[in-house]
């Protein structure tokens, strides 16, 4: 079980801001880091990898400062956003090259490299030169390199970039299983949907500052100034109208809207916890069965546009 702690970390590159006053606590499982280009995602990763030294503040990975720490490097696997290959090598050569740096003997390194590549579905092409690889195969090779020595911490910068859907799916399944093994995984992706599939734990970052971090549902609850909209759809569409009427009797429902064509009602409340607790009982009492209770408000799309783009009333 590995933990990563940022204590008020600022990193400037000359006069250019990397990240500013970032405090984080990342535990085991998958954590998604989201934000626009240039927001500071890669800088955050570089600081925790020990590739960059914080200008102010301190970082602890498993309790130690990662900058220039050798023991830690056996515990962290890194998949950078960009290609980072010796193009003339085959995937097996490439992965085993780095495994030898991790103090495996040549035979062990080749064996581990092959296993790791086969696990990622590259068995047919792993002896071919990387130069001939497609984008998806390149991503798999990078992931194989970062995971072949079984690190406890994985840092994945846009691992799905350019990957075809099959590769994307495979990588996600792998990430899920590594997460279940108790690895600490930090992942960035521009495809919010992918992150949502993998995890509820996110870090939203923009202009070098952390806007929010934690469970996305909890983050939404903290934004108490914006009412939550909940979509409900009863099985019997004749009950749409009575249900809205009944719900508007409660003073904690601030608005109700009827979408007849979609067979849904939308309720708005500032006291979401109260709503979620009492709503099943109300349904029981009124003998109404609903087939859907959802709020699009705490989806990553919605959180992202509210917090990062500042579109609070989208």
């Amino acid at each position, binding site marked *: 079980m590995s933990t990563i702690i940022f204590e008020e970390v600022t990193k400037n590159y000359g006069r250019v801001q990397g990240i500013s006053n970032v405090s984080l606590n990342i535990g085991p499982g998958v954590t998604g880091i*989201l*934000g*626009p*280009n240039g927001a500071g995602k890669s800088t955050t990763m570089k600081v925790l990898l020990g590739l960059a030294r914080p200008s102010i503040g301190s970082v602890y990975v498993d309790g130690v400062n990662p900058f220039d720490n050798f023991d830690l490097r056996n515990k962290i696997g890194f998949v950078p956003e960009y290609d980072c290959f010796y193009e003339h090598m085959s995937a097996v050569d490439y992965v085993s090259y780095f495994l030898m740096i991790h103090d495996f003997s040549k035979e062990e390194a080749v064996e581990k490299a092959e296993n790791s590549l086969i696990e990622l579905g590259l068995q047919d092409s792993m002896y071919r030169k990387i130069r001939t690889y*497609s984008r*998806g195969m390149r991503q798999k090779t990078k992931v194989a390199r970062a995971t072949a020595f079984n690190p406890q911490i994985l840092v994945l910068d846009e691992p799905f*970039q*350019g*990957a*075809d*859907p*099959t590769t*994307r*799916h495979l990588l996600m399944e792998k990430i899920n299983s590594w997460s279940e093994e108790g690895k600490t995984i930090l992942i960035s992706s*521009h*495809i*919010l*949907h992918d992150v949502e599939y993998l*995890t*509820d734990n996110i870090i939203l970052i923009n202009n070098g500052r952390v806007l929010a971090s934690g469970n996305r*549902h909890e983050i939404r609850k903290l934004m108490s100034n914006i009412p939550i909209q909940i979509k409900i759809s009863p*099985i019997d569409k004749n009950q749409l109208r009575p249900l809205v009427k009944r719900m508007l009797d409660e003073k904690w429902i601030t608005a109700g809207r009827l979408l007849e064509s979609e067979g849904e009602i939308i309720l708005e409340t500032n006291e979401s*916890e109260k709503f*979620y*607790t009492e*709503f*099943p*009982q109300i*349904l*029981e009492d009124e003998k109404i*069965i*609903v*087939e*859907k*209770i*959802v*709020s699009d408000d705490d989806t990553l*799309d919605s959180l*992202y546009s509210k917090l*990062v*783009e500042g579109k609070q009333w989208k």
Partner: protein
Amino acid sequence: MIEAKNVIKKYGQVTALDDFTVDIPKGKIGILGPNGAGKSTFVKIALGLIESTSGEITVLGENLDKNSIEIRKKIGYMPEHDCIPNKMTGVEFLIEMGQVSGLDYQTATQRTHEILGHLRMGEEKYRLIEEYSGGMRQKIKLAQGLVHGPELMFLDEPTSGLDPNARQEMLETINGLAEISNTNVLLSTHILQDVETVCDYVIIINNGKLQIKENVKELVKRQTDTIQIRVGENSDEFISILKQNNNKRNIEITDRWIRIPYKNEESFKEIISAAASAKCQLYEMERIAMTMDNIYLEVVN
């Protein structure tokens, strides 16, 4: 829009398209398939870049074999790779592209500004392309395919590498394209959600054959037989009540959600009453809908 009849394309021994027949309707079409499945071969044939070994293909009502020059005036192409000069301004580049496509200077200028207006490019269109952000570069790439006013626009990975804002904007632009100028769109992408949000129809090609051609809206309306629930406090009590009612069914529990099989409407009733008696918050309850991912993986694997 595109009609292919028994198209076969062979590269030496390798058959890229194998007796491929499809009738693609007008509108916004997503074209999916693994690398090397014949997707790009089909697109290249439809664009008139390569010839098929045998079979007939009609694009926008014109036979490709006879009119491959004429047809190009009706087709626009936005390639995946970066193909724009850095040392020109956006406007200069587009006017030049317009002139290459046979427009005179004044018309090309007019078209350029019209298109950049649609794409919501402001004063930055007078800046050098090398200063552009990823999203703006993509817009210029899109605009160069549009400048001669094509009826059919082919987009290859238009959102690749864009951050969420830029991606959203690109998708809105593509939607607008079809609405404002009635351009048909053929979209090839690895990001299946893009197809879900933008396209009317989707075709999936694998092993040189058409696998499915379906209406996207219909496709994603399909629901799976699983209900996903998310509850708050007292979840243990909630789960134990559910288990009593569902002793023969398997309940999947993770710290993120609970999934139980959907049998009939009673399933919902059981969940609601379990939540009511356990007094726990019922944050979410919904039958999981089919996503493009599910469909794609089902078809391709």
